[in-house]
């Protein structure tokens, strides 16, 4: 792996030098501006990172007026004052000559890469005219709005609502959607994991040592190093988390659900589960217990290649550490079309040992209003939600609102890939335009060819981004957003076991002619004639509205960057509850067992944990009980193709950032030595992968760290538009090989498919 990295590192360094001249010809780019020293806004500013969606608390310092040094904010204890490589490279993005710093308008064919600069006023006017025309002719719902979920996504979705379109989409169905929806079906709310206190951790391909989420990555390492926790990893590839594990099981791709159900089978049949917890807080146990009878470890072995002996042993070891043991429910949740039941089965294995609201288990978290109620006093200020009155109610249905089984997704980010069917096949009705912010569906939605056709067919495509991403390359207008180091934003709730808030603040004055997206979508809204829905001037007005005009509190949060309140509280953890009650004399009285267990409230129809869900049964008959279903992920003569994250890049977003591109600009294809030997493939050889939807050429990396029947690539590489000079044409484009799939209930797309491998 590293030999390739090193070679690419050197090559990358040379290549980026050679492309400077080319980049300077790109209209609207930073290269077109004269370089002047950075102007910082304070000596050191506490803020929030945006190099990935974890959004770690950071501190940034201007060095000599020409550089920004970024570290973590130590106020956020679980983040340890740390940043990853991406976070540390924020200034490389800020200063990148290829970043777009002036609005652009397409002047050639869509995707041809011919651009002209345009003023903000003209861009707004032209876009608004077109949008209003489409609205009059076809209806507001024919314009889809999509954005990476996050701090400013609320602003583009506010515009959609004001405009009258119900069609808003986040990236949920391409990444976390199924574990969120599965949690909501079972618990009525999202769950958090308390990795740092766990004594036994079972991990199904949640590669926290490459897909870095600072507080969880640190929590996992602390559990392993400081508390001697055992880590068991099921993953088809020998990833870094597999390397750091005590046990690595090279599970067959997409069969995690079988192993999870077999673990549940052993927990139930060997009487290792928490009877008392199940009786008091869980409904639907009997149906689930009856269903898992057939899911023996021996059965699971035939499906997953994980030995039955290992599954039995792991289930016993896991139960022996209850309740301070956890089955990690994962993050990039796109392994199988049966994602919904896979994630539910992972939650079930937690519920059975009663680790809910226990140290080292999973928990619901404490935001200010609930926490204050337990404390009997106002320990933490609650954030106000400044709503706007009289927002129009859309008359049309959402494009993903056809089948009732997807009902939970409609309010959880939607099914992103339905934009393709609505655009290309008018299902359920014809889309006419797509307005997007900080999203790169050409990389992150599957079936790139279909995404390209969709972008070419629409009447209007608008993209708000930092670069001319592979998707922005097909836009009619590119509205350049300021980087996170140049933006102020609303206060964010960062509560965990106790309430906490943090805030993004500008570190340097804006370079070039960019704007924060809250401003872009407000000004576009005004150009559309929707000014009545924008009763605020700027971010500070919004921040003060959130804090009920408490100026000193705002100053405090801004100064510290991250503020937490009270003591950590997990409702069934006796020690924590005792400490909590000691600290707050008016605290709610505890149960006989010294906990707040009876105060747990689950927002499910029954008010309990629904191991079996009548609500889901109503949405999709036959799906109330967690089940295994056979799926075919590849043809017999194909290899599985899977992807994953690398620590130096974020999905489809960072591959053109100079420092990160220099670290890694290509993704080699991991091939097992036996598979490679059969085809006479050696490391460094050129190879081709062909799937049902596309074909990609890349470079082989022959390694024992992958199953014989599987090939692997890090995702996000191989951009095909010419504007991303450091990323274009380097490595294979994973999205181009993945078919467009909509998984039942959770609407996830799918990142496992079959490919044919040949040497070229």
């Amino acid at each position, binding site marked *: *792996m590293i030999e390739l990295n090193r070679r690419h590192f050197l090559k990358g360094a040379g290549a980026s030098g050679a492309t400077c001249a080319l980049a300077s010809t790109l209209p609207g780019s930073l290269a077109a501006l004269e370089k002047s020293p950075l102007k910082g806004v304070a000596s050191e500013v506490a803020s929030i990172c945006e190099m990935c969606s974890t959004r770690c608390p950071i501190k940034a310092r201007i060095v000599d007026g020409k550089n920004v040094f970024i*570290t973590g904010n130590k106020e956020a204890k679980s983040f340890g004052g740390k940043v990853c490589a991406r976070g540390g490279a924020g200034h490389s993005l800020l200063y990148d000559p290829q970043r777009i710093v002036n609005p652009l308008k397409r002047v050639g064919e869509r995707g041809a890469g011919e651009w002209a600069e345009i003023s903000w006023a003209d861009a707004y006017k032209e876009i608004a005219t077109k949008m209003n025309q489409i609205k009059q002719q076809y209806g507001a719902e024919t314009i889809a709005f999509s954005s990476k979920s996050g701090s400013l996504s609320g602003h583009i979705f506010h515009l959609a609502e004001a405009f009258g379109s119900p069609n808003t989409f986040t990236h949920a169905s391409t990444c976390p959607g199924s574990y969120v929806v599965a949690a909501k079906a079972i618990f009525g709310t999202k769950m958090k994991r308390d990795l740092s206190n766990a004594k036994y951790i079972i991990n199904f391909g949640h590669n926290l040592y490459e897909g870095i989420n600072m507080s969880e*990555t640190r929590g996992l390492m602390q559990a392993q190093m400081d508390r001697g926790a055992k880590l068991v990893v099921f993953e088809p590839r*020998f990833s870094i988390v597999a390397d750091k594990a005590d046990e690595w099981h090279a599970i067959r791709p997409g069969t995690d659900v079988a192993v999870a159900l077999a673990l549940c089978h052993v927990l139930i049949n060997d009487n290792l589960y928490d009877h008392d917890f199940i009786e008091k807080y869980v409904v639907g146990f009997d149906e689930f217990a009856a269903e898992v009878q057939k899911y023996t470890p021996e059965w699971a072995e035939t499906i997953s290649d994980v030995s039955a002996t290992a599954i039995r042993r792991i289930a016993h070891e896991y139960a022996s550490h209850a309740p301070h043991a956890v089955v990690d429910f994962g993050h990039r949740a796109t392994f199988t079309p049966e994602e919904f039941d896979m994630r539910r089965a992972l939650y079930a294995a937690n519920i059975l040992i009663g680790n809910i609201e226990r140290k080292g288990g999973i928990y619901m978290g404490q935001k200010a209003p609930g926490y204050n109620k337990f404390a009997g006093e106002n320990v933490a200020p609650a954030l106000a939600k400044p709503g706007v009155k009289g927002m129009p109610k859309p008359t049309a249905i959402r494009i993903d609102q056809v089948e009732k089984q997807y009902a939970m997704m409609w309010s959880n980010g939607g099914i992103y890939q339905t934009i393709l069917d609505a655009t290309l096949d008018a299902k359920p009705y014809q889309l006419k335009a797509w307005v997007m912010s900080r999203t790169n569906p050409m990389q992150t939605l599957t079936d790139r060819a279909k995404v390209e056709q969709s972008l070419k067919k629409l009447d209007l495509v608008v993209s708000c981004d930092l670069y001319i991403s592979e998707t922005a390359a097909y836009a009619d207008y590119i509205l350049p957003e300021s980087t996170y180091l140049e933006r102020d934003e609303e206060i964010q709730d960062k509560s965990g076991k106790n309430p906490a808030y943090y805030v993004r603040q500008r570190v340097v004055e804006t370079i070039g002619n960019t704007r924060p997206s809250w401003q872009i979508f407000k000004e576009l809204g005004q150009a559309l004639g929707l000014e009545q829905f924008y009763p605020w001037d700027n971010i500070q007005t919004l921040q003060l509205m959130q804090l009920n005009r408490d100026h000193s509190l705002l100053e405090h949060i801004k100064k510290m960057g991250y503020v937490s309140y009270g003591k950590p509280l997990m409702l069934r953890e006796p020690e924590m509850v005792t400490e909590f009650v000691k600290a707050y004399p008016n605290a709610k009285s505890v149960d006989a067992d010294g906990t707040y267990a009876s105060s747990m409230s689950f927002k499910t129809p029954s008010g309990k944990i629904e191991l079996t869900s009548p609500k889901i049964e109503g949405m999709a008959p036959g799906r109330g009980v967690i089940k295994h279903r056979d799926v075919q992920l590849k043809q017999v003569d194909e290899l599985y193709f899977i992807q994953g994250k690398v620590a130096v890049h974020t999905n489809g977003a960072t591959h053109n950032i100079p420092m990160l591109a220099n670290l890694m600009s290509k993704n080699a294809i991991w091939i097992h030595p036996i598979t490679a030997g059969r085809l006479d493939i050696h490391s460094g050889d050129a190879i081709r992968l062909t799937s049902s939807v596309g074909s990609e050429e890349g470079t082989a990396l022959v390694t*024992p760290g992958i199953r014989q029947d599987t090939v692997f690539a890090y995702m996000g590489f191989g951009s095909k538009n010419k504007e991303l000079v450091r990323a274009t044409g380097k490595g294979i484009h994973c999205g181009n090989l993945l078919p467009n799939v909509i998984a039942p209930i959770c609407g996830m797309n799918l990142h496992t498919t079959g490919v044919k491998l040949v040497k070229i």
Partner: protein
Amino acid sequence: MSKRYVMVHDENKCIGCQACNIACRSENEVPEGVTRLQVRVEGPFGEAPNLHFKYHRVSCQQCEDAPCVSVCPTGAAYIDENGLVSIHNDKCVGCMYCVAACPYKVRFMNPITKAADKCNFCKDTRLARGEQPACVTACPTDALYFGDANDSKSEVAQLLNTKITYQDKTHLGTKPRVYRVPTKRGGIES
């Protein structure tokens, strides 16, 4: 008493994420194409399923007996009062003897200063301000420790006393001051 600055790299905790590399680059303005520090993830070694990676920190080893210093014809390469192998940029004539002599292959010519360059534990930047080196500050999993080994109360002194460590290429007699805690594979099949 003079200081004896040392670095300890715990390979059990290192995840090869390159946060150290980027932090070093950012703090010390290391130009594109050259590097003072990287962690090479080597392997996997062994036979499946008992594979393992090696996390190899590649940077100046701060040798007590430094070949780069003994070959330098102009005195540009020197060891300072705290034992840090350092460079007088203005005395460097770019002969690259040091680059050739370094057994760890971590010296390079800086294309901006035109002088030899390498890790100096952030001596001119963070150390001068009383801070820890950039790599230590950034490391997400706390795999790096830095301090004065002459101070028996320091974290590094205690680590060196209580953990098994090794140094690279000690047979050459360079006496490196970068110590490594080797990977300890955990128990399997209980």
